[in-house]
């Protein structure tokens, strides 16, 4: 392992660290507001924000860990880690704990491990390893090779059932494929094939997932279920108007009209209380944050590092796009959280660890290339 060099520490991307801290801070503050709900006897606070804070501390530990070693070692780790992930995912249906009707967790005694979170990291590593080899855009064979690697874990995750995480894995890999580039003669038929094949996936969806898509197309269809979420979240955000109602003053969220306000719909609470101005601030934070990751991909000293950063980029990009799109009524309701803003232990730790990985790539950008 390359010893930590003082020169390397000097090159830490403080902008990215700062943006991450800001986003995390906004998230905890927003959870504080979302934790309050009215009982028959006054306001009571759920300790979500406290827990989130503790998860954050753990995540920053992960972040530092992921910064310390030279990321190039991950190249050799990618394949074994992928195999371990497959093993873990196969364990889930057998030993998994059932929470909310889905079998997603492995009970490790001291905490519940969600193998789908681990899968995100190993897909990122193996994707970066495979795709950074060679420079020409992908041909058919390479494309199918990469997709085959992604399909197995994604399929296992979707069967849990956890459509959100399964899609994340596929989208992350898809993003990396696009980052590498596809040959034109592959790309053109794909443009025809995908719209034809996509509707077929309908038959593999669970009934509730189909319902969500139908509900998205016609929210009046299911006004007590998912349609209710869409309608209520839009009312909450829209009613924030330009300046917002102020911290802790969101009537929609405080009065329990808004469901799942601390997880997938957390941004609706933010939108109501901080208005358009606040949302622009948050959106800018996210875009600057993505831009810093982009810069890392741009400046990386080797292709593997560049692909790692690009993978993290897509990991965050898709989540932001899908979650905001869903809460703003632009997409069907899929259970994907908004990074740093939604409550979630594993997600927080993974998010911060991945930032650590980007920082790792970023701070070694000036290390001399070995001939």
């Amino acid at each position, binding site marked *: 392992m390359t010893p930590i060099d003082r020169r390397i520490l000097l090159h830490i991307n403080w902008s990215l660290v700062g943006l991450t801290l800001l986003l995390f801070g906004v998230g905890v503050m927003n959870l504080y507001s979302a934790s309050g709900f009215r009982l028959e006897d006054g306001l009571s606070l759920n300790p979500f924000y406290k827990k989130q804070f503790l998860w954050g501390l753990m995540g920053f530990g992960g972040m530092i860990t992921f910064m310390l070693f030279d990321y190039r070692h991950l190249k050799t780790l990618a394949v074994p880690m992928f195999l371990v992930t497959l093993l873990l995912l196969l364990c889930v249906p057998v030993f998994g704990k059932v929470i909310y009707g889905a079998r997603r967790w492995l009970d490790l005694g001291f905490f519940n491990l969600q193998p789908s979170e681990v899968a995100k990291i190993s897909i990122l590593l193996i994707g970066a390893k495979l795709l950074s080899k060679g420079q020409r855009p992908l041909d058919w064979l390479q494309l199918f090779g990469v997709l085959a690697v992604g399909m197995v874990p994604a399929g296992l995750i979707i069967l849990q059932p956890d459509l959100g995480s399964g899609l994340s894995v596929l989208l992350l890999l898809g993003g990396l494929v696009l980052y590498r580039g596809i040959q034109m003669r592959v790309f053109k038929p794909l443009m025809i094939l995908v719209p034809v094949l996509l509707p077929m996936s309908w038959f593999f969806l669970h009934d509730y997932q189909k319902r969500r898509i139908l509900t998205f197309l016609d929210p009046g269809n299911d006004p007590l279920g998912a349609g209710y979420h869409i309608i209520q979240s839009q009312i909450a955000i829209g*009613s924030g108007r330009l300046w917002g109602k102020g911290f802790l003053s969101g009537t929609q969220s405080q009065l329990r009209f808004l469901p799942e306000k601390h997880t997938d719909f957390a941004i609706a609470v933010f*939108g109501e209380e901080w208005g*358009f101005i606040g949302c622009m601030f948050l*959106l800018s934070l996210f875009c600057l944050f993505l831009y810093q990751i982009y810069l890392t991909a741009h400046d990386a000293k080797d292709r593997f590092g560049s692909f790692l950063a690009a993978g993290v*980029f897509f990991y965050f*990009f898709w989540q932001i796009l899908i979650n905001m799109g869903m809460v*703003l009524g632009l997409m069907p309701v899929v259970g994907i959280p908004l990074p740093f803003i939604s409550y979630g232990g594993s997600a927080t730790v993974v998010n911060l660890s991945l930032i650590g990985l980007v920082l790792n790539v970023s701070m070694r950008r000036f290390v001399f290339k070995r001939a």
Partner: protein
Amino acid sequence: MAAQFEPEGQAPPRFGLFLLQALIWGLFGLFVLRFWYLQVHKGEEFAQKARDNQLRQELLHAPRGLIRDRNGVLVAVNQPAYALGLIREDVRDVKATLDQIAVWTDIDLATLEAKYAKGRRRVKPFEPLILVPDLSFEQVARIESNALFWPGLEIVVRPRRYYPQGPLLAHVLGYVAEANEEELEKDPTLSLGDNVGKGGLEFTLEERLRGAKGLRQLEVDATGRRLSQHVMRPPRAGEDLRLSIDLELQARCHEMLEGQAGAIVVMEPFSGEVVAFVSQPSYDANWFVTGLSGPQWEKLRDDPMHPLQNRVVQSAYPPGSVFKLVVGGAALVNGVSPSERVYCSGQVKLGRHIFRCWKKHGHGHIDFLQALTQSCDVYYYEMGSRLGVDKISEFAMTCGFGHKTDISLPHEKGGLIPTREWKRRRFGESWQGGENLNLAIGQGYTLVTPLQVARFIGALVNGGDILRPTLLAGGEPERQGHLPLTDAQRQLLVRSMVETVEQGTARRLKRRDAVIGGKTGTAQVVRLKLKAGDVRRKLEEMPYEERDHAWLASFGEKDGKTYVAVCMVEHGGHGGSAAGPMLKGVYEHLFGKQK
């Protein structure tokens, strides 16, 4: 070494970098526009919605299907009922509100609190929790006039079942009552305070009768006041049903049986439609709809006459001599010649037991037809020992005894046809020869329901088809089986019934203008009391619960219309005298008074 150095090989893909930039701009652009649209462009609209109004969904109750008799008279209808609901999100102080409700309704606070505690877990946000399912008009008025001071309280108007005929059809229709914990658990479409069918057709046809709730969207302000509403899904009313019951005949039978415990079934033998279905004593089904008090319920449950017992299908009795029709059939099928005579001296000896005929001095030489019309016991003792339990039981079961009739009523009994196998299982003993004799005259273990008897007589009359009895009019007859008799054998049994009315034990039914057939039965309740040498006591001298059950099974045909009528009077004594006048009344209703 330097030759392997490839700058392009280490550089990130140019297209990829361009793509990332484009995605950032795309994301930013898309959501700026969307936030702008929602918060600035439409902001005022959403703010207005959020400030004053909220969308809520409310379930609309579907009226239960109406039930009419065969002539269209309504026998189960819906009336509006007023329930008190509490929307806990709108209530400021639950304790004080419950206190106030206790004052208004005279329901004690502990009951209300228990109901609230149980119900709050079951209602969705902003759904009224029904605390009092039934309010009187005075209570409604009192609550309405104070409603402004008690936000979150709501009078919910729901359709409630009413049975205009009261006890007349209670055993047919059953009743509806508030769904209990278990039913609520099982059926997610039910909400607290909903009524479901609990007995009779209301129970078995619940799915058809219930319909489906509708959905209404309400806009309410911050205090829960309604601003506007629109129906998103109209409720679907339950299916209306037409019974096969003739309400007038039902009423007449009900009246004739008044004061006694018993049952009358009248059935159309070619369709299986039941025209009268009476079980006395009865009860008023409306009591259950509004809810019985504890003492009321105990009184009904502990009544020695068991008014809740449906005697047509839920009680099985020894059939007595009515069963001779079945054993007679079995004899014919097993090769007994109708012209063969058996000598009746008034008794038969088997081992140490003496089996007596009801006619002390005997019938003398007697053939098949005479044995049925005179109901000679000795002839049937002979048949019993010749055929044995296996043949008799097998025949009886093919005739539909020992099985439920599958009329759509809950808790129907199948009765009992004993077999060797059954006795061994039940008592661990083998079948005794003497038991064949008892079996042959319908005593002993054999148990039948009045409806099974009606179905059997119906099959004798209609050409042999065992039809499923139905309480609904206009359906296709459903065949359950066929009598294992030839036409000649069947007609012989029918003729024996006609003869029984002409000159036998059922003379009371005789009419000049119609063909009537019948078979009486007197089923001993306490066999031990009537051992050998015991003198038959007069009916009036016997304690009520030791008196025999009286049976009369009959059919009648006039002007191409055929009916089967069966009457069973618990502890009524002799079939002819107890049940005869009642069935005479039935035929008077069906065929008119005899000139």
